[in-house]
């Protein structure tokens, strides 16, 4: 296999390597006459990225035979890309024969220096190939990377996992009593409830997909997916530097999510490269479903069950420390059920303690039936948009109701903070203002 590239392709190539290096450690290279594929899988097998280059991407691209493959350490390629990209005139990669032990990478610099690296191929490559059909995902959205970065600024920078809750956009404007409007998507920080130290910032962000996203498709019940932020940020900065928008496909909790660059209006077939990032999502939904979440035992045994076949692989989330009881302690604060007055649906529930108590299922149901939303100090939330629970507007709702109607309003008015406190990018319309925070919240 031999390939060579120059000019802007080198910059793109370097960005691809940088992104791959932020996801996994090993780079699997698969070259066939029609395309060159780079894959990597992270060590906990919860993130997989692949980048496909068409032959047109390169100045020279030749592959002998049907397919050539090998695997090298990404760290080694990052070392060779420490040479300032702007000083590289030409980059070439050569695998002299299919089972060669070293791949040759040569850089010709404008200064006249020629640097040739021989990187040893991994002896037992762990080349996995994962291909998911994007059309099978029922929901997706397209966003500009810098817009999503702007939203992520509201989250603690060390946040490890984030939940996206997607609900169906209402096509008609809501009635006056339900001025939530079209904030159909919620971004929420996910903090592992079993972690002892919970001094981190929790964030919930409700956004209007028509304002923040370029495109948004979701119908039906609300779904949520919880996945890793590190890989999301890596892919975001990759798409941003390539000046393409990012498309995120998802289905529901537990199903993998897929991200890909969205090249212009077409399906990307005219681009010379494409990339896919697949992330496993947490099995456990952050939404209150009819039953408490699926048994977490499945989650604790994920390590062994990731060896799926080549096609649709179900990446179970590895949650090694999950408690025996569902970690579904975080109930959604907002009301995803029907309009006010028409029954509660999910109902407004207490926000449980994060990391302080592990309630069994019975106790959880108990708490839901508590009609007065007197939240004790122990169970106080640490959201950065605190709300006085005592002013749950639809007090007439039946809190014990567990069944869920079709979702209409996505947010409970009591969640809105004052307009001048709201740092959300969406302009606030005429929502109700939250009463001032009770004193015992302020120390959080």
């Amino acid at each position, binding site marked *: 296999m031999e390939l060579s590239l120059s000019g802007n392709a080198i910059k793109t190539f370097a960005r691809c390597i940088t992104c791959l290096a932020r996801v996994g450690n090993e780079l699997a290279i698969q070259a066939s006459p029609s395309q060159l594929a780079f894959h990597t899988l992270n060590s906990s097998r919860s993130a997989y990225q692949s980048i496909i280059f068409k032959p047109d991407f390169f100045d020279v691209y030749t592959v002998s035979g049907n397919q050539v493959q090998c695997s090298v350490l990404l760290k080694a390629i990052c070392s060779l890309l*420490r040479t300032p990209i702007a000083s590289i005139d030409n980059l070439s990669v050569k695998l002299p024969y299919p089972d060669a032990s070293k791949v040759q990478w040569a850089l010709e610099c404008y200064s006249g220096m020629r640097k040739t690296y021989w990187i040893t191929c991994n002896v037992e490559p762990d080349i996995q190939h994962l291909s998911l059909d994007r059309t099978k995902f029922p929901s997706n959205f397209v966003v500009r990377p810098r817009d999503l970065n702007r939203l992520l600024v509201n989250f603690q920078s060390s946040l490890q996992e984030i939940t996206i809750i997607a609900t169906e956009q209402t096509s008609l404007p809501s009635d006056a009593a339900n001025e939530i409007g079209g904030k159909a998507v919620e971004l929420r920080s996910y903090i592992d409830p079993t972690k002892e130290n919970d001094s981190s910032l929790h964030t919930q962000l409700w956004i209007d997909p028509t304002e923040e996203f370029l495109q948004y498709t979701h119908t039906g019940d609300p779904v949520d997916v919880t996945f890793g932020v590190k890989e999301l940020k890596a892919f975001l900065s990759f798409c941003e530097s390539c000046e393409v928008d990012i498309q995120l496909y998802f289905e529901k909790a537990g199903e993998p999510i897929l991200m890909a660059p969205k090249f212009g209006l077409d399906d990307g077939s005219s681009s010379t490269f494409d990339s896919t990032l697949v992330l496993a999502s947490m099995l456990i939904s952050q939404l209150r479903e009819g039953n408490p979440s699926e048994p977490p035992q499945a989650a604790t045994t994920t390590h062994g069950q990731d060896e799926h076949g080549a096609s649709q692989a179900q990446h179970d989330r590895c949650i090694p420390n999950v408690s025996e009881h569902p970690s579904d302690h975080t109930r959604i604060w907002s009301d995803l059920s029907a309009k006010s007055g028409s029954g509660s649906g999910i109902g407004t529930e207490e926000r449980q303690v994060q990391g302080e108590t592990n309630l069994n299922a019975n106790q959880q149901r108990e708490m839901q039936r508590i009609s007065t939303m007197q939240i004790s100090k122990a169970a106080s939330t640490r959201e950065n948009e605190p709300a006085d629970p005592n002013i749950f507007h639809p007090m007439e709702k039946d809190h014990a109701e567990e069944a869920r109607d079709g979702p209409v309003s996505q947010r409970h008015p009591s969640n809105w903070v004052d307009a001048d406190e709201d740092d959300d990018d969406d302009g606030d319309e005429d929502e109700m203002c939250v009463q001032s925070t009770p004193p015992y919240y302020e120390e959080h």
Partner: protein
Amino acid sequence: MSSEGPDLVCEVDNVQGIVDALTAVRWKRQQDAVVELSEHGVVLIVEESSCLQAKVYLQRELFIKYEYGGAQGRPRFGVSLGLLVNCLNTFSVPAGGRSSSTIEIRYPGPDMQLLLKSVDSLDACIYAEIRTRIPETISWDYNFEPAGTTPLSFTVKSAALKEAIDDLEWPGSSVQIILQPDPPSVTFKGEGHGDLQIDFMYYVNTDLLIAFSCDRQVSYRYKYKFLQATTSNIPSSVIRDNRGSKLTIGRGGMLKVQHLVSVARPSIPHPHVDSAGYQQPSRIAYIEFFVKPEEDESTIND
């Protein structure tokens, strides 16, 4: 000259330049240097484990005043290089400061110390004494001899040399330097957990290799950490000026690396700088490194 007077009284107007020159040979935190004074100037020598030696030549023309009184032989003394550099740093003023950082250096003091004193400053006087030691004899004779009738040498842009040597850290092995006449080129090679080869071709049109002299292929290996010491602390002014650094391979494979460090301060008129600002060669400090080759390497000949 009185035998009781100091061996040397000199004045330096650009302390930062002297600091830059001395910093170039600081590859370790703690190094003992030997300083040799003569009527020609000051030479400072550091070495490590008989494999690496560096010399800094500060000719008398660098100094605005140089009074040498050591009639008998060349006085030598040992001093801690780090201490000397840190001390000189306290005297230097930031660039652009209007006050000059002229200092007087005197040796020896009453107790064989090195004495430094700020002069020409209106408000304050800084005074320092540095203890010196009787130097040990240099254990290894770095007598550098040419390899043959034709010198084996090349001059390469300093920034490029530093970049290449920094890149050669990755293989984690010793570095092989190969000179070959046809095509005229220099190759640096490292073979460790990965292999890296950096080639400098001597073309007329690129100015990467500024000079090249070689009549037969030679190849020697050097320990990476010693080779790295020759460029790791090159002052940024040298990288910016990007003059050439000259590398010469001598008899037995001994490698000599030479850098030029400008000690001038263009804003201050100096007797050795003419009105056009042209730096006379004497306003340059010379740095030389000598690196012994690894012993098991034999010359590869055609």
